[in-house]
């Protein structure tokens, strides 16, 4: 398996992620495009010491951006919504 930090890129802190975590104990991450759900599940469990119930992933195409005359494309990426088992929690900011 790849190192953990290559699979889990970063947590996503957005309005939607915030809503989901409040409603159903879900946390959102940006993850490696090549990682599959099983790898993600293992990585999360290992990194945050929690039990994962399910993983939903989705691919995003990078937005096309223009700077003056030049067109460019941001990298494609993958997002994972990870539902945790009841009683488990991840605190991103580590209070």
């Amino acid at each position, binding site marked *: 398996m790849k190192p953990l930090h290559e699979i889990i890129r970063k947590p*996503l*802190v*957005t*309005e939607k*992620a*915030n809503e989901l975590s409040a409603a159903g104990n879900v946390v959102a991450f940006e993850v490696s495009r090549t990682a599959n759900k099983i790898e993600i599940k293992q990585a999360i469990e290992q990194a945050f010491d929690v039990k994962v119930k399910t993983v939903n992933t989705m691919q995003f195409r990078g937005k096309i951006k223009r700077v003056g005359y030049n067109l460019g494309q941001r990298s494609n990426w993958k997002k994972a919504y990870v539902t945790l088992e009841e009683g488990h929690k991840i605190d991103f*900011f580590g209070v």
Partner: protein
Amino acid sequence: MNVSVEELSQIRKKLVIEIAADKVSEMIEDAYKKIAKTASLKGFRKGKIPRALLERHFEPRMQHDVTGALINETLYKALMDEKIDAVSQPQVVDSGALTGGEAFTYQVEVEVKPQVVAKDYTGIALEREAYQLEAASVEKRLEEMAESRAQLEVTSRKKAREGDTVILDFTGYLEGAPFENGAATDYQLELGSGSFIPGFEEQVVGLKREDEKDIELTFPENYGAKELAGKPVVFKVLIKEIKEKVQPKLNDDFAKEFDAETLVELKERVGADILKQESARIDNQVQEQLMNALVERNPMDVPEGMIENQLKNLKQSFSGRLQAQGMTLEMLGMNDEVFAQSYRPMAEQQVKGELILESIGELEKIEVADGDIDKKIEEIAAESNAPLNTVQDYFKKPEMREGLEYQVQHDKILAFLIAKAEVSEVEPKADDAEEKES
């Protein structure tokens, strides 16, 4: 709101102000609501940041806002309630942490006017210069007036002397070629004024009208134009005219120029002016002695804020006077720091003096009556040659009247003190006092 006051010294007080817990919570709530409207955080639309995140990210801002607002709201009220007259900006020395549901306490130090009770202010030994108007000083003043009216006239002498003004053409040559800005025609040059390069004027002395001469000299090493500094040059000079200063004769015609009928009248007037100036100067000296003695006899601490204020006033009047002469403080190499350093003792002295006088005014119940002010207004009108009612109108404004009242009271107190003092007449201290004045 709970306030307790502690006296640190004669001039410093410490206030401990406590604000009730529910007021604090309310303020924090309001602050977050306000922040929520404008704060922006990546991943969230404006105004949609959940409260938990808001508290995590914007706590310092909330602390700052709420502390500032609370202090603003309570400090001045506290000062008013406790009847503390702060002479400078109060300093917040310690403010506790702000937590919802808990009381907030902060401490402030303020400078206050010291309570001064003047003592030993009678029987001060003062020296007053005895002044006698002398004919010589009138003559000297007339001489100065004549000089200021001196006019240039074509002289009958042949050769130019030091002090004459010559009209000349000149062209300067550097290594045989004329150089930039080195030539002029009909140039008016006062010999001995030192306005030209050193050596030039000296060599013009002794030349006659229509004379031509090559003046050879070397530019000084520190001359402004680099390419000329330290270089030997030749000036071809043609003298066109020689003029000398002619002072008007001291006679009745001269007197008429100064709005006097005769020379005798002018002399009288000049004498009266000198006498007035001198007695004003002597009065000032006596007052100064008095103030110094008072300050010495009444040692006290004065708040920094009052000294700073006085310094500011001094600086303003000083630069005002300079400006009237077309100068600025910067031209004298002064900046705030230098000024503060050199005038600080003076400012401190003045503040102390004012406080002492104020206290004497209270102790002796020296008050200003309307009659005093009317008299003063009449004096001012007479002095400035302005119609009485204009001056009266000018002092109808409350702030002007207040200033005048203050001044009149000040004068009265000083007069009272001088009357109570032991004044002895002394011989004027040689001539240097007069020199300084002019």
